[in-house]
C-alpha cells in the first residue's frame, strides 16, 4: 500500500483549472521531488494535501484513509506536516516555544491543570522542554532555544520551520522550497540534513524545489507539473532527458 496516494485530483478556482487529474503516489521512506515552472500548481498540491484547499474532484488517501474534507489540523494529526514557501514562523515566540506548539497535539494535561499548576503540568512541561531542545540539536541550534524566532538568521528560520514540522511526528513531510534563498554551501548542508531526517525519523519526504542540483541529487523520483498537468514522472535521470520537461522549462 502506498503511504500517500492522490487520484484524479483536480481543483478549479472560478474558471481557472489550477490542477487537473493529478495522480501521485509516495511510498514509505521515499524522497520525492515535485518540480515545474512558476505557476505550475506545485504549492496548490501542498495546499490540497494539507487541507487548506478543498479539491473540486478526485481522491487523496493517507495509508488508505481518505483525507478529503478534513481540516488542516486533523490532517496534520493524521500524519502530514509541511513547511511554507514564505516562512511562517511564530515570530514573537521563542525558538523552543515554536517547537512546543507542534508538540501540543501529543500533550495531555488539561486547561484546569494548566491554570492551577497541578503536578501534571510541571511534569509534562519539563518533558516537552527537554524534547524541544533535543529537536534543536538536530540542526545544532540548541543555543538559540530561548531567542525569539524573528531574531534568527534566514537560514536558521528555514531550519526551524522544518524542525517545527517534524515535531508534529509526521509520516510524510512536505517541504515547500526549503533551499530558497540559501547559498550553495547552505544548500549542500540542507541536502545532507534532508537525508538524515529521512533516515532518523523513517518518514517520506515530498519537496518542491527550483534548485536542480538539490533535486537531482537527493530525490529518488520526480513529478513534473506544467500548467496544472502532470507532464512527466520518473527518476532524475529520466526527467533530465525528457523532451517535454525541457520544453516546459525552456519553451519549444
Amino acid at each position, binding site marked *: 500500500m502506498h503511504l500517500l496516494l492522490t487520484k484524479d485530483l483536480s481543483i478549479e478556482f472560478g474558471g481557472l483549472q489550477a490542477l487537473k487529474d493529478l495522480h501521485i503516489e509516495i511510498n514509505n521512506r521515499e524522497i520525492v521531488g515535485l518540480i515545474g515552472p512558476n505557476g505550475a500548481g506545485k504549492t496548490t498540491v501542498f495546499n490540497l494535501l*494539507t487541507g*487548506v484547499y478543498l479539491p473540486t474532484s478526485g481522491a487523496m488517501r493517507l495509508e488508505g484513509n481518505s483525507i478529503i474534507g478534513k*481540516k*488542516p*489540523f486533523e490532517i*496534520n*494529526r493524521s500524519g502530514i*506536516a*509541511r513547511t*511554507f514557501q514564505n516562512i*511562517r*514562523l*511564530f*515570530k*514573537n*515566540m521563542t525558538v523552543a*516555544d515554536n517547537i*512546543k*506548539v*507542534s*508538540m*501540543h*497535539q501529543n*500533550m495531555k*494535561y488539561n*486547561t484546569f491543570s*494548566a*491554570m*492551577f*499548576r497541578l503536578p501534571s*503540568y*510541571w511534569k*509534562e*512541561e*519539563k518533558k*516537552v*522542554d*527537554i524534547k524541544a531542545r533535543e529537536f534543536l540539536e538536530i540542526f545544532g541550534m540548541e543555543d538559540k532555544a530561548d531567542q525569539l524566532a524573528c531574531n534568527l538568521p534566514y537560514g536558521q528560520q528555514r531550519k526551524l520551520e522544518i524542525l*517545527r*514540522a517534524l515535531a*508534529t511526528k509526521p509520516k510524510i513531510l512536505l517541504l515547500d522550497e526549503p533551499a530558497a534563498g540559501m547559498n550553495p554551501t547552505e544548500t549542500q548542508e540542507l541536502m545532507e540534513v534532508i537525508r538524515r531526517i529521512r533516515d532518523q525519523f523513517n518518514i517520506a519526504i515530498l519537496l518542491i524545489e527550483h534548485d536542480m542540483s538539490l533535486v537531482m541529487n537527493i530525490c529518488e523520483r520526480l513529478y513534473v507539473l506544467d500548467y496544472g498537468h502532470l507532464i512527466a514522472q520518473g527518476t532524475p535521470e529520466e526527467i533530465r532527458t525528457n523532451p517535454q520537461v525541457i520544453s516546459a522549462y525552456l519553451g519549444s
Partner: protein
Amino acid sequence: MGYLKKKTGVYYLINAVLVFLLFFVLLNLINNRIINRTSTQILTLICINIILAVSLNLVTGVLGQLVLGHAGFMLVGAYTSALFTMNIGLDLKIAFPISLVLAGLMAAVFGVIIGIPALRLKGDYLAIITLGFGEIIRVIANNLKITNGAMGLSGIKSLSTTKNPSPMFIYAYALAALTVFLMFTFGRSRHGRAVIAIREDEIAAESMGINTTYYKLFTFVLAAFFAGVAGGVFAHQIGVIDPSKFDFNRSVEILIMVVLGGMGSITGSVISATVLTWLPEQLREFSKYRLLVYSIILILVMLFKPSGLLGRYEISIPKFLDKLFARITKKTAKTKTGGA
C-alpha cells in the same frame, strides 16, 4: 530544568506574599477608616476593572482578536447576579458567591452563542459584530420586564455596611488576584502557546495541529466568564444598575485600558486599569472632558508607543529582586577581593 522549576516556585511565592501583603495593608486601612468610604469604593472599582481589562487582554492581546463588546458580557453577569440575590431569599453571604458563579456561567453561555458565528470573522469585522452584540444585549435589557427596562434594578444589597466597610473590597480584590493568576498560568501553558500561535500565524498554527476554532472560542468564552463575574461584583458594589451603565462607551473604556497597558501584557493591563479608574475620580470636576482626555491619551500612545506602555513585557518584582541581589552580591564580592 529542575533549577528553573525551583526558581519559578520561589517567584510564585514572592508574588503571593506581595499580593497578600498589599491586601492586608489595604484591609487594615479600610477597617480603621483611614481609607474612607469613597476611596474604598474606588479601590473596589479598580479591582473590578482589573478583572475586566485582564480578561479582555486575553482575547485582544494574547489571541489577537479585536473585541468591542466586553461590556455586554458584564451586563449579562451584572443582571444575572443581581436578579439572583434579589429573588432567591438566601442570606446574602451565601447567595452572593453563588450569584457570581452563575453570573460568570451565564456570560460564558452568551459567549458561546455569540462566539460561534462571530469568530468566523477577523479584525475589523469581528470588532463590528461584537460591538453590535454588545448593543443588542443592552437594547434587550432595556426592553425586558425581568430587567425592569430602562429603569434598571435598584436596591441590590451590598455586603459592605457602614459598620463593616470591607467585604466588597475583599471579594473584588480576591477575584482580581485570582483572575490575574489564572490568566498568567493559562498564557504559559500548552493551551496558551496554542492561542499565541494563532495570534502569530493562524494558517501555520492550524497546519501544526492546533484546533484554531476551538481555541478561539475557548479564549473568548473564558474572557466572557470573567467579564460576567466582574459584572456581578459591580452590580452589588454600585447597588443600582441600568442598561446605560453597560453601553458602548464602557466597552471602549475597557479596551483603552488594554491598549494603553500594552496588548498582551497582564501587568500592563493591571497598571492601566488602576490608573484609568483612579484618575477620572480625581478629576471629577473635569468629568465632561473625560472622553476627550481618553482619546487624546490614546492618540498620543498610538503615536509614540504603538504597542502600549509595556508592549508585551511583564513587570516582575521577583525578577527585579533577583537582579538587585545579584548586583549586591557582586559588589560585596568585589569589595572583598579589592580589600584583600
